[in-house]
């Protein structure tokens, strides 16, 4: 009862006499930013994420060693503990593994690979899911039924299983030895095919709501074709939920990559991601060299938690029902 008048009277108090505000000003005045500044969790999560991404991007500049370059490894330095322990020595701050590889460098490079695979995986699953969701929602009828039934079937398999199947089929058809480039592509496609369903479902239901709205009807009367209407008018109005899913899925994609690598079907030991590092480090856990597995594990956990918290906040901030 009290809401209506206030909404109508005071909702977006934009001074009319002032020049039209630019995008920057609109963002500055937006509720999203205000909500962000109110949430301590969100600020911490964003800072942590930015830190991780920064470290990953700057890995070649800041890490003491290039862990992919066998020439830089020296067996003399193998199995050194972290620097604060008795046998620790610079520059191996977090210790080394059995190859003499610096754990800190390996973690930084692994973070980089994990993030690249995760982001590409999210983009791939997003493109597949959004496209199918748009088509299903707008076309309706048999096409809609077909796409959504495929999605239903897909959902009954765990994502990791699908990724394993795709991976296995591809390896079988290309032979065992794949270069790192194609291998990353393969993992990205596996992740894309595992995670598209959520995008498709969300986009489809949003499109079904949006297509009945007047602006879509108006666009039809203006003589625009369905693809133009979908991309130009409908898509921008369904991006909110897509961003939320993408953020949360980024964490899932990173975990999926780590799982694949841990199971041995992901990235090889010569070019380790966080998952590969955990797998190789796992072997030394009981012989006392805990640092080989602990630091990659901590990095992975920190990255995933930070991204997840960011996604949770974004979901709440964009959900009008919770405000």
């Amino acid at each position: 009862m009290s809401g209506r008048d206030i909404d109508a009277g005071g909702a977006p108090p934009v001074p009319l006499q002032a020049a039209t505000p630019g995008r920057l000003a609109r963002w500055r005045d937006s509720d999203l930013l205000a909500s962000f500044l109110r949430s301590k969790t969100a600020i911490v999560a964003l800072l942590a994420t930015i830190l991780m991404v920064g470290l990953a991007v700057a890995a070649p500049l800041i890490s003491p060693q290039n862990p992919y370059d066998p020439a830089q490894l020296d067996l003399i330095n193998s199995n050194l503990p972290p620097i604060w322990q008795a046998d620790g020595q610079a520059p191996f701050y977090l210790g080394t593994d059995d190859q003499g590889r610096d754990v800190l460098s390996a973690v930084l490079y692994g973070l980089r690979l994990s993030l690249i695979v995760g982001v590409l995986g999210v983009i791939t699953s997003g493109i597949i899911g959004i496209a199918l969701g748009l088509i299903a929602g707008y076309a309706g009828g048999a096409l809609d039924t077909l796409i959504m039934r495929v999605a239903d079937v897909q959902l009954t398999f765990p994502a990791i299983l699908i990724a394993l199947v795709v991976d296995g089929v591809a390896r079988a058809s290309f032979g065992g030895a794949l270069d790192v480039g194609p291998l990353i592509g393969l993992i990205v496609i596996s992740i894309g095919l595992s995670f598209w369903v959520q995008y498709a479902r969300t986009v489809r239901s949003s499109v079904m709501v949006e297509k009945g709205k007047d602006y879509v009807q108006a666009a039809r009367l203006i003589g625009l074709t369905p693809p133009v209407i979908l991309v130009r008018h409908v898509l921008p109005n369904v991006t909110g939920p897509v961003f939320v899913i993408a953020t949360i899925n980024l964490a899932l994609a990173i975990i999926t990559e780590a799982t694949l690598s841990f199971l041995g079907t992901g990235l090889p030991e010569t070019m380790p991601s966080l998952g590969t590092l955990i797998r190789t480090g796992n072997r030394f856990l009981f012989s006392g060299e805990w640092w080989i597995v602990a630091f990659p594990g901590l990095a992975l956990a920190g990255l995933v938690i930070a991204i997840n918290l960011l996604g949770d906040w974004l979901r709440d901030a964009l959900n009008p029902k919770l405000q």
Partner: protein
Amino acid sequence: MSETILSVRDLTVTFDTRRGPLTAIDRVSFDIGRGEILGVVGESGAGKSVTGSAVIGLIDRPGRISGGEIALRGERIDNLPPEAMRRVRGRRIGMIFQDPLTSLDPLFRVGDQIVETLRAHTELSARAARTRAIDLLAEVGIPAPERRIDGYPHEFSGGMRQRVVIALALAAEPELIIADEPTTALDVSVQAQIITLLKRLCREHGTAVMLVTHDMGVIAEAADRVAVMYAGRVAEIGPVAAVVREPHHPYAVGLMGAIPTLSQEADRLSQIPGSMPRLTAIPKGCAFNPRCPKVFARCRVERPEPILVGASRVACHLYDVTEKAA
């Protein structure tokens, strides 16, 4: 006017927002007598709904009553603690909202909801309460009430549901009913039924009614007196016939002229230029001055206080005698 039931004096409601406090209601005063229907009319943003919420103590954060007094039969109710106010609502003030579906719990039989209200606010036994509920349903014109009392809200049509809501509002024999857009969600042919019912019941029970609506037609048919609100202030208040036929405030004049009617055939409707100011930008002086055809210097600096003009009170400098003498 007979005994005063509701008395509102200089009511001010402020919303504390991130961008500073906004005054949604600015020194609003009115009285409602026994058995009287006061129409509160205004366009969106005029503050009519907020006024109704303030009277029943349902202003949600970040809003708050920041000034003035609300008295029910001489007792102040604006400063009651929440628990005491909750007892006043339902027992002494009934409520009717726009959408009957939202004020009825879909999972309960309509009779149970009325019985629940009766038992919460009166000493009636369960059996007596049910008999009373059937009487109430009969009184609001529900056919076969002894059977319909066990129906669920979704089994009633829109008009019948609004009748149930009215029965619910009347259940505890309140002194005052706040009706916020009670006919807006209904079809025109049903609107008339509800208006007639509301009028008859408040006459018979001597209930005072505050009828909040944007529809001047509903006010014209239902209300005894009407308060025209603009930008959180009362522009004009008076007997409905006077305000509709001979409005004084330039906003009320413009509003009446802008409404197309079934009887007259004007080629052009009179129109008020511009639109209601936002709460963030209420003009200095008289809030209506930028849109007023009769604006003069004083309107831009000094807020007009209500002046008695005929049977109405009008907040407009045009009617200030000292102004005319000058």
